[in-house]
């Protein structure tokens, strides 16, 4: 059976401050897919996610499946130190029932007593896991991740990606992931978009990530290697 569409994008163009950031991008996401958006810094990856969320104006078409619930995990949030916000408070902002908050926190490997802890007292890795958990409550069908491991140390980074893989298995999630890390693409994605303002490649990573496309994407700065699984 044909898998259901979650998102269709056609001829997307985004301009910011009189500069073209994304040009003529078209792609589709089906239920259960993990689509990675790969590209160097400044390639328009985060802008793409924000455009999909409706935060930035655009030309072209963005069509989401009806009544879709989207979870969003931003690249980085400034630490919340201005006000005393406990983790429970943070989840209450999303009207997450306490039972669900506890369950989600457990699935990102926090103990339940973490609820009372202040957000301002967390390490950056812990805070990132809290953000992922926040994206997960209230059962989104699709998660948009913007470089979920920015500013997180290497061991925490591995934890976060393993966590993503685990959660995806548990929850029938569709994932849209922004990264500049090639190894993540092979490990986790069903499809990849190489983006450097213009789309450079689009398709299953094993097929479309050729030395030529990577050369065009990164301008020859990146050594090419392919994971064999």
């Amino acid at each position, binding site marked *: 059976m044909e898998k259901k569409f979650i998102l269709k994008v056609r001829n997307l163009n985004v301009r910011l401050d009189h500069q073209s950031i994304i040009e003529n991008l078209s792609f589709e996401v089906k239920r259960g897919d993990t689509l990675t958006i790969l590209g160097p810094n400044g390639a328009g990856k985060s802008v793409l996610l924000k455009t999909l969320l409706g*935060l930035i104006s655009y030309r072209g078409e963005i069509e989401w499946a009806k009544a879709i619930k989207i979870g969003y995990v931003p690249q980085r949030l400034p630490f919340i130190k201005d*006000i*005393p*916000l406990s983790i*429970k408070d943070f989840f209450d*902002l999303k009207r997450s029932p306490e039972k669900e908050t506890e369950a989600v926190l457990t699935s990102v490997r926090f103990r339940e007593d973490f609820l009372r802890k202040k957000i301002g007292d967390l390490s950056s890795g812990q805070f990132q896991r809290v953000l992922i958990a926040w994206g997960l409550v209230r059962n989104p069908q699709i998660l948009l991740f913007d470089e979920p491991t920015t500013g997180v140390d290497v061991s925490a980074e591995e934890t976060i990606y393993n966590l993503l893989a685990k959660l995806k298995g548990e929850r029938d999630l569709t994932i849209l992931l922004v990264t500049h890390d090639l190894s993540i693409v092979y490990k986790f994605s069903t499809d990849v978009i190489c983006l450097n303002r213009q789309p450079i490649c689009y398709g299953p990573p094993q097929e479309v990530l050729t030395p030529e496309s990577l050369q065009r994407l990164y301008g020859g700065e990146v050594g090419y290697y392919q994971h064999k699984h």
Partner: protein
Amino acid sequence: MDNQFLLSLIVGISVGGAAGYLGSLMLSRRMALVAGPLGHLTLPGIALGLMYGFDVSLGAFPFVIFGIVLIWLFEMRTKLPMEALTAVVFASGVAITFLFLPIEQAEATLVGDISKVRFGEAIISVVLALLLFLVVKKIYSKIVLINISEELALSEGINIKKYNLIYLGSIALIVALGVKMVGGLLTAALVAIPASAARNLSGNLAQYAFGAMVIGIISSFLGIFFFKLTGFPAGPLIILASTLIFLISLISITFRK
């Protein structure tokens, strides 16, 4: 206890409580700074109210709205930091006032005068303060999320423009109500100090918001009470009472660490 004192106390407590509660939202995103210039900008309005004998809050309100529109426009057009913009508005308010303010009216304009509040004014102030409390309660969690991250708020389907407008309107109202109590110079302190003290004392959002409101109420009570005892103007006494509570909260932090 005489009626006039009771009336002042009731107005003081309700406006002080509402200001503390709203102030707890304004501490993030450094909005507390905005109340200062807005307070100063109301000075011409207060002066007009005193000179022609109408409610100073009524005189202040159009000036606050004008100030908010001005700040909003500046921010949209120039992208200068909010602090720089508010400083422009701030100084203009004071400058205009001193062009025409009679010197005998200066004290009430600058530091407020709640001691002669009339019955009708009192009722209106209390009703508006209660209304403000309910509105702020309604928008509280949305504004907190917007302050944390506009992107997260938008991904939750929150209409940021709408909530920011209600939020700014609430700030305008509390400044207009506050100037009657503490004058144009001290309004920022009415919103900022209780929230700062509550922040030092609380471990979560509910304690913080409720704490700021309670500290606002206690400060107003103490300020007006000591005005009755000493005859010093109530406005500065209210602010000093909240400063004292803030200092105590600092000590409590030091001991906790």
